[in-house]
């Protein structure tokens, strides 16, 4: 999966829109920062979120991190494979390591998120600050 067609948040999630479905995951940078992921908590199908809401948590050995949805919508599908084998998020964060699929409430939000290029710049700046 190429990062080019994805849109990104400052909290290091990505979304890929296909029709009225948005697939959400965490970025390569995020999985690297977390280290080996051992637990993943995701919502049930049917939950409705606004953009920026916490929809779950991802835990590595050292840290727990909240997950925030980049877009508003109703959970249509949850990646049960990633819950069972969270290491797949480390191995393939933009592909098999996706987290949830949302039926989008609006098509207006995605354009406001960062492009791959903007996100790469954002990560570089964030790293320089520390």
């Amino acid at each position: 999966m190429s990062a080019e067609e994805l849109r990104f948040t400052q909290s290091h999630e990505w979304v890929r829109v296909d029709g009225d479905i948005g697939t959400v995951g965490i970025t390569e940078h995020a999985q690297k920062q977390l280290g080996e992921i051992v637990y993943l908590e995701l919502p049930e199908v049917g939950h409705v979120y606004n953009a920026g809401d916490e929809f779950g948590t991802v835990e590595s050995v050292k840290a727990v991190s909240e997950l925030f949805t980049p877009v508003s919508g109703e959970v249509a599908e949850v990646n049960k494979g990633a819950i069972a084998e969270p290491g797949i998020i480390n191995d393939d964060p933009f592909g098999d390591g996706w987290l949830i699929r949302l039926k989008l409430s609006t098509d207006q939000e995605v354009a406001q998120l960062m492009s791959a290029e903007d996100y790469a710049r954002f990560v570089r700046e964030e790293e320089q600050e520390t």
Partner: protein
Amino acid sequence: MTAPAAAPSTLKRTPLYELHRELGAKLIDFGGWEMPVQYAGILEEHRAVRERVGLFDVSHMGELEFSGSEALAALQRLTPNDVGRLADGRIQYSAFLTERGTFVDDLLVYRKAADSYLVVVNASNTPKDFGWARERSRGEVRVEDRSDETALIAVQGPRAAALMARVAVPDPVDLPYYGFRDTSVGGAPTLVSRTGYTGEDGFEIYCRPEDAERLFRALLSEGEPEGVAPCGLGARDTLRLEAKMALYGNDIDDTVTPWEADLGWIVRMEKGEFIGRDALAAQKASGVPRKLVGFEMVDRGIARHGYSARTAAGGGVVTSGTHSPTLGKPIGLALLPRAAAAVGTDFSVDIRGRDGSARVVKTPFYKRSDAHP
């Protein structure tokens, strides 16, 4: 996702700092020290130590030297274990306690000679311990902080002895558990002890800071046949927790007594006066209110340090929690009311607002099968 903070630049560094960077370590602030938390990954490093051998930079640990004709008398007063039972070349796990019987720190006492001891303390406690010990040491005893002149490398795992046999003279394979002696490692003068914080067989090498990098490199290259791996503090934490070894600042601190920490074996009431003894006697007489226990999560998710616990006998607190790489499930330590501390007792942990169910289990979580003599 919320990004973890990187280490600010005002931190202390060990002599191995540049090498850690070269080896691709992720560095974090650990008690004021910029230390490697991981190289290849915590789970992989954990496995390396359980199955092969791992190298740890633990140069941040503090070393206090006690010398003089009354050094023994001073240590007998400062620590609850019986230093009088130590022979030359032997080591004892012990503590400094407050007058309330709670931990100032936990530590190792090395007896070099009747009038010479090395006390190894936790990194972030070193200045506190040094001041505390010096104020309370009377008579013919000198207390000196040797931490800046001492680097420390831990070699841990079932193949640690095979690796040490090739680089150390004399071969430390015959050292008993908690024994030590002067040893030349890769030509450098060191003190080697058969100690560790992982639950595996292993050694700790005390050396001069200027020799540390060369030694670490030599152990890495000589250890290739053993599958040696540099390991960070992340794996050190999962390893020590599986072995139920207490971590100061997490499981024990100045609110916890050895009785509560299940470390009663380091308290020798019969040896005579020591700081904290009266309070410990009083707590024993009135009943120890809580106990440090091991638990497994029945539900998913890690119960971490500081999360509150609810038992049928009252509240408690999680002191350490992680994912156990060996068991493949979440484990932890918690201070629970004594009536809820029996193995098999169910309790719940508040995991960020959600009730997680947990169960008290037998510890250690992991015990190596080839117990060393």
